[in-house]
């Protein structure tokens, strides 16, 4: 499905240069390596839990690559590590949420342009609409990029968000990663109407349903959607069709709801391997480049692991200090008794 009017602008229409294609590959390798390592960290006891994204690297890197961090803002849920990495977010600060150091992560959302990590899967979709409407009111040209999944699309907030955005012509790109599963429930038992993209028509919005495992297609689609929204034409829905190859989280056992054969058939070709073959075939990269990209990813993962390992618990006083901008006497009293009883001061 593609109901998005063509964009004339040269920047958007221009094909990606070889250096950009190589950069995309490097990002995908970095994300793949960090993602699989994070599962190992959980098994080793370094972090209590993690939500893997194996197989969604193209969807995340490709869409995150279209973000202009000088003016746009991204609203993630809890499975957007690849987007965060692509945007250049401090990954130790990002991973801190999975170490149970601080809900939302330790990165600065304003500086990184990435809203705090969010567990209510449709919660931030409306925030994207509000932020985007703020751009209109401020006469700015920033675009809000809202990530959610096929499961989240069942929640009312997604429908309210799409309706609000369409009525207000808010510059929002609703980026749906349809990874086939909402924990154990497959898309056909989750999404009525055939697809999330099909719903856009009902709100009078253009939509694109794309191959979410083709990183170049994802970059191109996201750039087109950004250009459409930035030009004041209102919101766009992109449904990136992909597949969650691993479990929902490190606590999940996909063997209870799908067989290995189903997993292999559903997943299709590995997006990373697919892109590698393309780069080879087109002569854009060679084995030496791939080896170098992997080595860089390994070095990066090691540095992030060391940082995550070194993360100590936050000082308890923050628990009280960060509730409000203006604290209350009740909270001050509770903080004082906590200090007396826990820190003996």
């Amino acid at each position, binding site marked *: 499905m593609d109901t998005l009017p063509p964009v004339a602008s040269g920047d958007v229409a221009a094909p990606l240069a070889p250096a950009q294609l190589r950069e995309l590959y490097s990002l995908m390798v970095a994300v793949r390596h960090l993602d699989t390592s994070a599962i190992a960290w959980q098994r080793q006891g370094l972090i209590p839990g993690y939500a893997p994204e194996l197989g969604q690297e193209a969807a995340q890197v490709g869409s995150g690559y279209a973000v202009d961090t000088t003016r746009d*803002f991204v609203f993630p849920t809890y499975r957007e590590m690849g987007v965060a990495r692509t945007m250049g977010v401090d990954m130790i600060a990002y991973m801190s949420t999975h170490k149970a150091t*601080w*809900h*939302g992560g*330790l990165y*600065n*959302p*304003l500086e990184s342009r990435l*809203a*705090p990590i969010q567990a*209510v899967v449709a*919660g*931030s*979709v*409306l*925030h*994207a*609409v*509000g*932020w*985007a*409407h*703020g*751009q209109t*009111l*401020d006469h700015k040209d920033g675009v*809000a990029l809202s990530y959610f999944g096929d499961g989240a699309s069942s929640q*009312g*907030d997604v429908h*309210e*968000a799409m*309706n*609000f955005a369409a*009525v207000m012509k808010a510059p929002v790109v609703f980026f749906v990663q349809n990874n086939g599963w909402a924990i154990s429930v497959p898309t056909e038992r989750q999404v009525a109407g055939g697809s999330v993209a099909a719903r856009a028509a009902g709100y009078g919005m253009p939509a694109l349903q794309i191959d979410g495992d083709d990183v170049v297609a994802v970059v191109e689609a996201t750039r087109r959607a950004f250009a459409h929204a930035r030009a004041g034409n209102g919101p766009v829905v992109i449904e990136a069709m992909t597949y969650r190859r691993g479990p929902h989280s490190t606590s999940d056992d996909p063997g209870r709801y799908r067989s290995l054969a189903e997993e292999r058939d559903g997943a299709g070709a590995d997006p990373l391997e697919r892109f590698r073959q393309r780069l080879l075939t087109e002569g854009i990269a060679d084995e030496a480049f791939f080896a170098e990209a992997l080595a860089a990813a390994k070095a990066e993962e090691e540095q992030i692991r060391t940082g995550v390992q070194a993360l100590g618990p936050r000082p308890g006083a*923050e628990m009280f*200090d*960060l*509730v*409000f*901008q*203006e604290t*209350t*006497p*009740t*909270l001050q009293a509770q903080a004082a008794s906590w200090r007396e009883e826990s820190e003996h001061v």
Partner: protein
Amino acid sequence: MSNSILEGGTTVAAGATANTVVLSMQQALNRALDEVLAENPKTLVFGEDCGRLGGVFRITDGLQAKHGDQRVFDTPLAESGILGMSVGLAMAGFHPIPEVQFDGFAYPAINQIVCQVARMNYRSRGTLPMPITLRVPSFGGIRAPEHHGESLEALFAHVPGLKVVSPSNPHEAYHLLKYAATRPDPVIFMEPKSRYWQKGDVDPARADAADGAPTGAKVMREGRHLTLVAWGAMVARCLQVAGLAAEDGIDVEVLDLRWLKPIDAGSLAASVRKTRRAVVVHEAPLTSGLGAEVAQLITQACFDTLKAPVERVTGFDVPYPSGDLEDEYIPNIDRILFGIQRVLEYKRG
């Protein structure tokens, strides 16, 4: 004496000055919003029917014409959407003053209020403040349909990250809204809809020293024999009751709590340490209501001086009833007088 909550007459602020004007609470709130919009270009007023209609209670009357449809606007009919959009606008540097049309329609927005509005400052370690003032026409007394009269204060007050306030008369409405709408934290502003049309003295210059701190409780009538603690529409009713009790020689102090989160425990203790007896009056159901919190704060601070256990006169543990029964449900003059009597006649076993 009628038991209708819509009666209770004009309120006169102590120490009226040359600045004082007589306004209804509806007019006072409208004026406060008008001034807040004029003073801070980042404030936005929006919700269902807030624009051209001026709100179903006309609280936003004329504001769109004066401040434009970018600053005062109608949203689609979806409360979760209104609150979720407020979060995003706050993240973009705005100061949203959203409205949910009636208290019972805050329920569809509870997820956004509790999981998002109340937590974003904490989740973001203070980098994304939520200066959102949610106006909620609240409480009963106007014979409205189901879901149009609810007392949600305990529910909101229980949520970490929210502050809750309720004005009792036009002067309080004007000043508390102006204060709330300039704070950097989320405030649930509970407007007693049965008092919207009651007129009273408003001193915009706030020359009245008895106003005290804008975050505190306020003694609305001094007394020696016991303290009635109330908020919102119940303050006017308690003042009525205090007048009647005075005819029997009972000198009742009326404390308007104003802020329900955080509660001004100091003023509460000061009043009850003086009178040594207290009755909490609220419209919300009894069980796990805010009266229990108030009673505990009093007990903790005044146990040694209390002459009787703190009494509660409240709504009942029933869904808010139809108009024909609401005078039975809302604490009426007789029930409050009985509460006073129980406290005054208490004998230690």
